[in-house]
């Protein structure tokens, strides 16, 4: 597969690692395989790599290295933020507020805490895909322990103004902590913890920015107290035990460094791709709606086609070596339509036909042409199939 000519438009799911990241990982696996806790030379070498990588990652979001916890990915970071904070601060409140279109690693985690006496409050989303600030404000009270709202939505790319949300939350209850899942925004946009002063925790992932899988981090503002999910040897200031994955951490840091340096070039490139795709779709197909607001992240475009099942398009494209994501899934473990689009009240005839096209700096206009031409050629056939 790797040698074939593929058009990869599923970069919100995962990205192809930078070659230099892959090389760096191999180099460390070959030569710096010591345990970063060991006190001999190989251990110290590993420790230095972890330390430097942590400083790099902290620098990218402008926080202190000790405010960073390295994790196995954003799923762990989200769990750590929500469960870790809730269990450490049970006396401060019992209500956790989140939005209806969060990633399952937030939504399910928040809901799971009901078994431990916590309440969840799920805020609505408007039809453009923004979390309703008024819903958040109206539901903050003395019992609100935490608010978790994502920065950029993984299916539509819609941006929430997290800095503003955090400020509004603190104005009502200064003890409520604010967490954001910033997976789709990290390195693509400037996330500055000194600017978002009211934000307390932020989760990110490595493999969305051309780093290795199995790596992520949680920013946790100094003074924010959490219970570790993993106890043991006291790694990472006792907040997350387990031998550090030196190679993975270094690969993650290198990817983040390159991606954030190039972010303005990338932004321009994917913005052009995004607007080209919008134009091309308008010229080539009919009966569709765009679910990504014009101000959404240009890295993601969500399109809903009327009268089809999106996974049929996904399968068809896959057969052509064009890889996209479907917003509905009878073929995955979770049946039914996207909870994100349901929260946005996308009409019934369209919601089952939602496609997510997500870009990387490697994509080209020619790839968009090929994708749209394939789509336009097959759509009439798919639409002719109706259950009778």
């Amino acid at each position: 597969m790797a040698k074939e000519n593929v058009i990869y438009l599923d970069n919100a799911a995962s990205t192809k690692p930078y070659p230099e990241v892959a090389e760096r990982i191999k180099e460390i696996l070959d030569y710096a395989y010591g345990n970063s806790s060991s006190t001999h030379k190989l251990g110290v070498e590993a420790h230095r790599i972890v330390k430097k990588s942590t400083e790099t990652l902290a620098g990218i979001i402008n926080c202190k290295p000790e405010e960073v916890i390295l994790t196995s990915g954003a799923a762990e970071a989200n769990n750590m933020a929500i469960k870790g904070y809730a269990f450490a601060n049970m006396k401060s409140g019992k209500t956790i507020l989140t939005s209806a279109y969060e990633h399952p690693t937030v939504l399910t985690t928040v809901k799971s805490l009901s078994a431990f006496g916590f309440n969840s409050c799920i805020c609505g989303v408007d039809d453009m895909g923004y979390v309703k600030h008024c819903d958040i404000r109206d539901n903050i009270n003395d019992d609100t322990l935490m608010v978790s709202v994502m920065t950029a939505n993984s299916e539509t790319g819609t941006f929430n103004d997290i800095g503003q949300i955090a400020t509004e939350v603190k104005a009502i209850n200064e003890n409520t902590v604010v967490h954001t899942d910033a997976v789709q925004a990290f390195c693509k946009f400037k996330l500055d913890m000194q600017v978002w002063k009211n934000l307390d925790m932020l989760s990110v992932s490595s493999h969305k920015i051309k780093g290795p899988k199995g790596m992520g981090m949680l920013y946790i503002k100094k003074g924010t107290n959490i219970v570790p999910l993993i106890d043991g040897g006291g790694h990472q200031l006792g907040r997350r035990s387990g031998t550090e994955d030196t190679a993975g951490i270094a690969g993650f840091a290198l990817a983040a460094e390159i991606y954030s340096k190039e972010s303005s070039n990338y932004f321009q490139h994917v913005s052009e791709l995004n607007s080209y795709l919008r134009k091309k779709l308008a010229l080539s197909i009919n009966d569709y709606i765009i679910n990504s607001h014009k101000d959404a992240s240009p890295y993601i475009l969500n399109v809903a086609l009327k009268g089809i099942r999106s996974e049929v398009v996904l399968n068809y494209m896959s057969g052509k070596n064009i890889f996209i994501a479907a917003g509905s899934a009878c073929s995955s473990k979770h049946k039914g339509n996207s909870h994100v689009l349901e929260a946005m009240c996308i009409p019934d005839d369209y919601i089952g036909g939602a496609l997510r096209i997500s870009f990387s700096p490697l994509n080209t206009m020619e790839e968009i042409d090929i994708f749209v031409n394939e789509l336009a050629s097959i759509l009439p056939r798919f639409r002719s199939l109706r259950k009778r």
Partner: protein
Amino acid sequence: MKKVLLIKYGEIMLKGLNRPFFEKQLERNIKKILSGDFHYEISKEHGRFFVEITGEESDRRKAADRIARVFGIVSISFANKLDLKVDDIYAAAIECSRDAIAKGNKTFKVETRRPNKMFPFDSMKFSAMTGEKVLNALAELKVDVHKPEFTVHIEIRKSAYVYYESIKAGGGIPVGSSGRGLILLSGGIDSPVAAYMMAKRGLQLDAIYFHSHPYTTEMAKEKVIDLVKKLSLYCGNMRLHVINFTNAQLAIYDNCPHAQLTIIMRRVMMIISERLAANTGAKALVTGESLGQVASQTLESLGVTNSSVSLPVFRPLIGMDKYEVINIAKAIDTFETSILPYEDCCTVFVAKHPETRPRLERIQESEKKIDIASLVEECMSDIEIIEVT
């Protein structure tokens, strides 16, 4: 004293002059299932195979579990092989009993078989003599000849075999001894069970799966491959034929009455299967159909489907209810894979109200609207073959 697996076979024993044919097939199948992973020696005596596994007790247990999946075998016993010395046999019987006591057993009996008539004591007498020795050695034990908690078995052959512990195997007759068949696999619960049941009757099976890309997901195909892998533990090596069925399905959809979509589709599938069977040497088709389960499995539907081919169609589940089928699927470990939700994306190929009492003439009339011969030809020219071992 050597530790051996004593393998009993059942139905083959009832065979007459052609028993050696079945025994040879069984031996081949035992060797095949052990090859690669175990060092072993196999030998045969009247009605028994003996397999000696080199290695630890855990290797012997693993090998026994593996052999238990070979059809034709009824049980595998963990036996001690000894010279025909009475005192050694007593000692082995006492050792077995001690082991059984450690597992919480308190009552026992001894059963002797004596094919070797040179041995000086008859079976009854030797059982009694051994039982007495065991009782003398292990005072906590009691004899219960009717419902013993364990039985010390002694077989007097060229050597003596002493054991109390056995595992059951599937029975039936060895795969390959009844010729070759072709199983139509859908990925659901039923067809893998049908394959298992016909393998038990000695059929060597290949599989055919109809893939309708892009209307069926790649994961559905992966699931079928996984099922074939699980089946191959019982059925031996299987070759999975993946048919690209999309164009045939679309042609039926576009041209035939929708209430007849499923029945015509199944007839076309049967025709393709029969064509493939001619290539693979299969002399029968096997399906997981069960009478009355769904619209396409009513008596009339089965009749109309059946009339599309002349090869025999075996439907081993025809008289079983769903729960019986599910129980077998669970026992052979295909159930969890079968229920993975990778069904067809596009249920448009299933009519809202399918015909449950189709008439052959009317179906044939509808089929005139499509060129079945060329659709079959097209499918036959685009087959992906996956070897599953």
